[in-house]
């Protein structure tokens, strides 16, 4: 705890105090507090401890996987959700006796999921960049959500009974502690102690911790890193399953609710600094007690009706502020291509024109696609087209931020939501075009404000903080009537009038709106391609590649990050304003945190460093309803909007640079003037022929394989070591010979 306070810099202390003040404000403005009677207090403690126990189980599993494999599992909640549904299927639907169902889910299905994930994906991710690690695990999360929704359609109601339902439980004064709750608390404590025992006292556990400290060294001492990470993922998934099964009777069998446990688990784990099991356990109890306290004693007023659901997000945000400031990270080797070649202004202009021409032709119905009569596009598809182009604008806003500066933000969809709301206040209700600029000016600082507390932290913590903000915005900000008034009458947005055209969601205005959006998109595409050529983009990329080296050449990392957050926030805000105009109306639940995730993933799959990927991702978005239409709404595709981006993101474990990069590299060679692309392709093919050694396997090479001369030669090629410079032997030889010289 002392450590945590030492981590709190002045800036972050101010941020923490600010958040705390806001919380106090919300509570004092709206609360009506129930009396602190003995009954109330007892209920609060019983409910709080049992909820907290479940959160603690989930958080401990998260911490075990993170500390032993270095990968933070965003799919933790979704896996637990899947397991809870599997348990329901066995127990309720198929009448399997409870103990057998429990054993099947917790000791067979869950560890199996863990081991398979480890073997197929996680071992590859070890050396991947943070962006790729996050995308793959978030992709897993959406996939598991989608798979669960597909197998167990949400149209039928399901309920999972509490354990020992119908028995009396234990009476404490006027309050009954049900056996389910008692079991939960005992189980949580047992699991936490067991995990601690495994990590501290068993050979496997010690090996697990050794692997994190130094993989190669642990390997030399006879540890098999592959087995260890498999065990750790199996353990993580088992705790996720237990937490899912225990929480399901409380939250109901709703995929979103069950998956959202991750935010709570994140908060609890963050209280434990993401690495301490006792810390995560206490963190879980704190979140559980906080939720129970507000449920028992505090009634929020109408303006903050959902504030209670935002408690975990607020705790997460505050806990992130107390996390240790990252020492300037050193870079990792990334060898993607041999030559740097930037898009020239002419090529960028051509690209922008192609995008404009394609979408304009499509909007006019000149491209035959989906049963349109030639020359006419259906209103439904025009509406969808406008929506996808706007989501494309949000994705473009991520390119400088995530693609170049390497900062993963899950908040841009929420910023867009804020932009939509602001636009309706500052001029959208009168159709003022200049209000769009005003929205940009409002949202740019918002983007910075979200990021500032986490700027000096590790990239992962920033991702967590932005996710917490997105959740907070959905539950508190967008539900405040001053921001989005769900009951307001009258129009929020008047059609936008520019150059004699009228643009809005009205069917008559839609075609003009789509074309206007395409112009905006093309301009931003061109602008980004030009920005990529400037010193700013170079500086961001340098900063992402090696923060330590960037600092030692005099780059102020904080200010250069602030600029990129402002640009990204402004772009997201503009997209949001247009989003509002396209929707015509806003409801309080228009911007759920989950809805922003597929956007980040789809863009990343296409290649988050390349503006062209923004347009490819728009086509990806459009392909989902198209697929449904073609297959006549085939039932297994019902959750394609989740599974599609999810599975696509998972492929990034194998193709980390994104489709646009690989396609660009392989296809550019067709163009007659791109001799460089053909040379590049030839070099890649050569490398592939050179052998099957991946860079991430090199660490394991000496441990699991024999060092044949062939392998050594192959290694030299992979590592780019020329024959005449035997680097791996030189220092040793030199040192000895000169040492002798010193001796003389």
């Amino acid at each position, binding site marked *: 705890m002392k450590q945590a306070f030492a981590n709190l810099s002045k800036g972050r202390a101010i941020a923490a105090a600010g958040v705390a003040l806001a919380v106090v404000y919300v509570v004092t403005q709206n609360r009506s507090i129930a009396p602190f009677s003995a009954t109330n207090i007892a209920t609060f403690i019983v409910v709080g401890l049992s909820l907290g126990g479940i959160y603690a189980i989930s958080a401990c599993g998260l911490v075990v996987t993170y500390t032993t494999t270095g990968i933070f599992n965003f799919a933790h909640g979704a896996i637990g959700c899947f397991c809870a549904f599997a348990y329901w299927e066995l127990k309720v639907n198929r009448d399997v006796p409870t103990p057998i169902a429990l054993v099947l889910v917790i000791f067979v299905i869950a560890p199996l999921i863990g081991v398979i994930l480890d073997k197929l994906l996680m071992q590859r991710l070890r050396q991947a960049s943070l962006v790729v690690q996050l995308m793959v695990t978030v992709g897993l999360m959406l996939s598991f959500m989608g798979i669960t929704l597909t197998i167990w359609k949400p149209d039928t109601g399901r309920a999972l009974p509490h354990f020992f339902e119908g028995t009396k439980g234990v009476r404490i004064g006027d309050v009954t502690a049900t056996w389910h709750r008692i079991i939960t608390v005992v189980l949580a404590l047992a699991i936490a102690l067991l995990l601690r025992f495994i990590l501290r006292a068993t050979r496997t556990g010690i090996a697990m911790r050794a692997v994190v400290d130094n993989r190669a060294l642990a390997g030399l001492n006879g540890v098999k890193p592959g087995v260890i990470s498999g065990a750790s993922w199996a353990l993580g998934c088992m705790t996720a399953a237990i937490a899912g099964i225990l929480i399901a009777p409380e939250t109901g069998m709703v995929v979103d609710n069950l998956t959202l446990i991750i935010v709570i688990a994140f908060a609890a784990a963050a209280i434990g600094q993401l690495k301490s099991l006792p810390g995560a356990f206490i963190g879980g109890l704190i979140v559980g007690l906080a939720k129970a306290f507000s449920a028992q004693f505090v009634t929020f007023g109408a303006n903050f009706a959902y504030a209670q659901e935002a408690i975990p997000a607020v705790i997460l945000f505050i806990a992130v502020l107390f996390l240790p400031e990252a*020492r300037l990270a050193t870079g990792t080797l*990334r060898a993607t291509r041999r030559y740097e070649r930037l898009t020239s202004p002419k090529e960028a202009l051509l690209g922008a024109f192609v995008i404009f021409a394609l979408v304009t032709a499509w909007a006019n119905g000149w491209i035959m696609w989906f049963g349109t009569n030639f020359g006419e596009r259906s209103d439904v598809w025009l509406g969808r087209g406008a929506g996808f182009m706007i989501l494309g604008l949000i994705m473009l806003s991520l390119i400088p931020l995530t693609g170049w500066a390497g900062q993963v933000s899950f908040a841009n969809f929420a910023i867009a939501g804020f932009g939509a709301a602001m636009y309706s206040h500052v001029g959208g209700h009168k159709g003022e075009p200049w209000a769009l600029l005003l929205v940009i000016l409002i949202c740019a600082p918002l983007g910075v404000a979200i990021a500032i507390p986490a700027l000096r932290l590790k990239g992962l913590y920033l991702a967590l903080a932005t996710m917490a903000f997105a959740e907070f915005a959905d539950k508190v900000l967008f539900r405040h009537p001053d921001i989005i008034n769900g009951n307001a009458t009258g129009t929020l947005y008047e059609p936008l009038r520019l150059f004699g055209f009228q643009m809005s969601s009205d069917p008559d205005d839609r075609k003009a709106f789509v074309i206007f959006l395409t112009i905006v998109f093309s301009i931003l595409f061109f602008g980004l391609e030009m920005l990529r050529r400037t010193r700013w983009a170079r500086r961001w990329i340098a900063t992402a*590649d090696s923060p*330590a080296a960037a600092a030692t*050449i005099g*780059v102020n990392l904080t200010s250069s990050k602030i600029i990129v957050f402002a640009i990204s926030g402004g772009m997201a805000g503009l997209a949001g304003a247009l989003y509002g105009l396209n929707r015509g109306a806003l409801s309080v639940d228009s911007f759920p945190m989950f809805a922003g995730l597929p956007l980040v993933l789809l863009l990343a799959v296409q290649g988050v460093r390349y503006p062209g990927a923004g347009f490819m991702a728009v086509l990806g978005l459009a392909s989902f309803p198209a697929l449904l239409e073609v297959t006549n709404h085939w039932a297994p595709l019902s959750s394609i909007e989740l599974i599609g981006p999810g599975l696509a993101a998972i492929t990034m474990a194998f193709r980390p640079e994104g489709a646009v990069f690989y396609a660009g590299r392989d296809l550019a060679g067709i163009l007659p003037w791109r001799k460089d692309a053909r040379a590049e392709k030839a070099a890649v093919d050569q490398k592939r022929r050179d052998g099957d050694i991946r860079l991430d396997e090199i660490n394991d090479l000496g441990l699991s394989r024999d060092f044949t001369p062939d392998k050594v030669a192959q290694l030299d090629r992979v590592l780019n070591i020329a024959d005449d*410079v035997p680097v791996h032997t030189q220092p040793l030889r030199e040192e000895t010979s*000169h040492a002798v010289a010193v*001796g003389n």
Partner: protein
Amino acid sequence: MPLLSAIDIVVRFGGLRALSDAYVNCEPGQVTGLIGPNGAGKTTLFNAITGLRPPNSGKVVFDGVDITNKTPYRRARLGIGRTFQKLEAFTSLSARNNVLVAAEARQAWDKSKFKPQEVTDQIMEAVGIGHIADQMVGTLPTGTARLVELARSLATNPKALLLDEPSSGLNAQETEAMAGLLRRLVGDGLAVLLVEHDMAFVMSTCEFIHVLEFGQVIATGTPSEIQRDKAVQAAYLGAVPEVEGVLS
């Protein structure tokens, strides 16, 4: 008064004292060597001087200013440049852009009129990497990538340059070229602090040498003094008779 001096530097990693009361002084126009066995704390001392790992106690003074509590980028702006033992190139940028980023960053504090592009081209020529300007650094051989790092730190126009094993990964010819380049830089008044395992390189380029062992400076002096120093011999070879046993 030396341009750069680190005084009584202590760095702890948990219970381990990586540096205890280590010191080093650097004069302009001189190459100062910092040698010692593996794990002696040479790189840690570099990190303490450049601010990547602020010392637990001790003082770093540069150009008459106490910079102990300054952030790394502020130190760089005052004129401390460095390279890294484990390569820290910007791997997704071309060699030229690696250097250009530094030259552009310099415009933030160096108000003299210069064109970053021109500075970049000059330095790349001087270091001898003009021919690989468009190649991505991630795909270059280690030795060449080290030269890119050197060029990058030169682009900030430093007064003191900290080089962490610049010759590792270079062949004999390249090492010779590197030595020549260092002599030229020092001739222009640069202060160079050099960590190096190649003793021939150290003995021929350094005017003054500090020897570090187990986080402490066990000897300072000119190359010939260091070669005669009993403590240094022991540090490098253990007991002398043992070595003779190995050699015989």
